[in-house]
């Protein structure tokens, strides 16, 4: 079912002088989807959103909304509503005036506006708060008012620019579920921007991972997490352990990597790179902390790693072991706490085991900095 209006970016370039903020982006967002752009600060997420909402003209390429080219159409004529990174509630207007600003523009009467505001206030669980000023609301309440204001304009596409970044952790988690519920209720396309991979993974139908103006990978949360196509995507989304090396052998969709420290290791080639990765290429192998487990010391094989334990920590739900790894990076192993006893391994050699399907090989590339 493709209700709602889709958004397409075709060969989109955005330059500021010599600086390229967005490089050749191609994205198809299906109508009614919750789509996230995920990337570190300064990678061009806001820039893309501003191009979609009409505040920025693309240097090259096109933005299509519902199949219509938006070239030359101003932000007030596009069927989009943007929730700004800083919310941008009108400080001198009461909450209900804020929410129904778009109706005021269309010349609706105060009574109609009041009525609509009350409906929306009920929806965002702030009944009876319409007469407050934005400055009298808490962060989470402002957040919800901004959403109501955008929804009041009845946009086909709602654009959200890191709306949760200013909230504390508890509220952020609460708002995630709430946003998702609202999106499913109104059924319009949401384009969501975040640098928080947890947000992107929990809420989105599809995610685009961005790095310095380039879109590295587009896919649903599971694909991005389990089958990253670049070293950046693998290291940016979730925690990951990296093993550097060269491809020494290719067996169908799997490969043997001769790593710098841990000998020859066996792994699966990520879907996007199957058939492209060649013997002799520089490669990186990624294994999630939770995919590693302890094996009897001294076990040999191409899915076993031996390492010296640096330190350990107990996190409550997991027991983490840090061992020395490649190029200054530690290897982290997370063992779920199921009530078993944990030995202290500090300073000892241990052997780690993994399932080949959980180890992913991608071409060597830039890693996300912490």
């Amino acid at each position, binding site marked *: 079912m493709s209700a709602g209006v889709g958004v397409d970016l075709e060969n989109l370039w955005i330059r500021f002088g010599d600086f390229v903020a967005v490089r050749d982006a191609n994205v198809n967002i299906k109508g009614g989807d919750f789509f996230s752009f995920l990337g570190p600060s300064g990678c061009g997420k806001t820039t893309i959103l501003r191009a979609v909402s009409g*505040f920025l003209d693309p240097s090259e390429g096109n933005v299509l909304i519902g199949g219509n080219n938006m070239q030359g159409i101003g*932000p007030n004529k596009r069927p989009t509503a943007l929730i700004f990174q800083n919310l*941008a509630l*009108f*400080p001198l207007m009461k909450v209900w005036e804020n929410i129904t600003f*778009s109706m005021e523009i*269309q010349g609706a009467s105060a009574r109609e506006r009041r009525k609509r505001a009350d409906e929306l206030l009920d929806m965002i669980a702030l009944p009876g708060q319409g*007469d407050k000023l934005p400055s009298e609301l808490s962060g989470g309440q402002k957040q919800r008012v901004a959403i109501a204001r955008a929804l009041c304009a009845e946009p086909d596409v709602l654009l959200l620019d890191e709306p949760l970044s200013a909230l504390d952790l508890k509220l952020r988690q609460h708002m995630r579920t709430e946003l998702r519920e609202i999106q499913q209720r109104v059924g319009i396309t949401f384009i969501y921007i975040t640098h928080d991979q947890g947000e992107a993974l929990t809420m989105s139908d599809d995610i685009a991972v961005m790095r310095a103006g380039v879109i590295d990978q587009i896919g649903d949360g599971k694909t991005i997490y389990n089958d990253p196509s670049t070293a950046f995507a693998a290291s940016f989304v979730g925690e990951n352990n990296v093993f550097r090396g060269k491809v020494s052998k290719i067996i169908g969709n799997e490969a043997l990597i001769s790593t710098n420290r841990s000998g020859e290791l066996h792994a699966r080639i990520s879907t996007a790179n199957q058939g492209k990765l060649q013997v002799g290429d520089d490669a990186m192998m990624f294994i999630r902390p939770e995919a590693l487990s302890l094996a009897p010391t001294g076990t040999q094989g191409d899915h076993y790693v031996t390492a010296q334990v640096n330190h350990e920590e107990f996190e409550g739900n997991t027991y983490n072991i840090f061992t020395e790894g490649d190029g200054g990076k530690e290897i982290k192993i997370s063992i779920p706490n199921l009530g078993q006893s944990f030995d202290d391994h500090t300073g000892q050699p241990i052997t780690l085991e993994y399932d080949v399907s959980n180890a992913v090989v991608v071409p060597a590339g830039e890693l996300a900095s912490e």
Partner: protein
Amino acid sequence: MNPDKIIRYSIWIYLAIFFAYLLGPLIIMSATAFNSPGFPRMTPWECLTFDWFGALFRDERILNGIWNSVLVGIGTVIMSVSMGLAGALMLTQIWPKLRATYYTIIIAPILIPGVVLGISTLVFWDRINRMLGLGADSFLSNGLFLTIIGQSTFIASYCMLVLVARLQRYDMTLTEAALDLGATHAQAFRKVLMPFMFPAIASAGVLAFLASFENYNTTTFTFGEYPTLTIELAQKVRYGITPAISALAFMIVALTVFFALVNEANIKRKALIAEARKDATVGELAGKVEVPGFLSRNPAAIALIVLLIGTATVVGSAMAYSPDQCIAGVQEQKRLETERRIQELRDQRAKDAAEKSQQEGGAETQSTPKPSNNSGFGSVFAPGTLEGSDSDAGDAAPTDSGGNNSGFGNVFDPNALQNDDN
């Protein structure tokens, strides 16, 4: 003595001197508006009178000057606030590299002497007038037009400074949010930016009006047929001032104090409401009366209100009170005093003459001309008048109307100055 105490006392003394310096002239000036002598003075206090207010409102030129000042003020407010707003908006839009240069240029008129601005306005518009082939009575050489244009050249810069300060606190994404919600640029400007700017626009307007009202040095070149109040006052001083001017000053001071108080009360009230709203719902607040709150926190406001009430009662009682009786009494007293002096002098002279004639056998009957020279003008140079501080020759001259005898001769009368010092 405790050094702490010394410091505390000296601070109080310093404050007293400082405020005396600051407010003293205003208080003296205001007081002179209620004293009956024809020259503004506080001592000797003769009669409480409100005639000077009447005289003020009967003075065509002053009234006309006020009217012109108000016209020019309104014109200048409109011109300079809109130019200032445009300039301030421009500053936020302009290419960042040009910003500093633009700012310097737009601020420059403040640094240029008003005299120069006045002359150049006159010359510039005269040229344009001639270029367009218009006559001397055209709109472009109209005094109102020239004065408004001339004053606005630098008052607009003041306004811009005020507006820029506010504009810098404006979040440009608010305009974008309005556009995004379907507003046109004009609607975003009117519904979002303007309400935000309104407090600054209001203060820029007040500032512009006051700056225009008090301006002299630019206006003096441009006023043409429309002399403003400052121009009229300056011209009046040449012919001597009367307490009617003090009355005007008093009214301006009173109005200023009043509006300052109203403003202060407003700010306090808003702060209180904002504070209260934090922990009360809107419904609870609607019933509350907040006004007295600002009094409990501001002794200066109380003092000023007491002063105002005092003034109001004095003025109120004055409606019923007629100073004519008192003035007549004072004049009678003065006349008697003069007569007494004349009598004394006559006696003295007679005595002198008698003595002289006794000694020299009446060789010299003519005495000095001094006693007969009793008019205001002559006694300026009479050393005797300097001694008498209670009543001087100028006022002692018997005249019918206390209002009109004064001006001319007394301005340069050293006695008048001396008496004011007392």
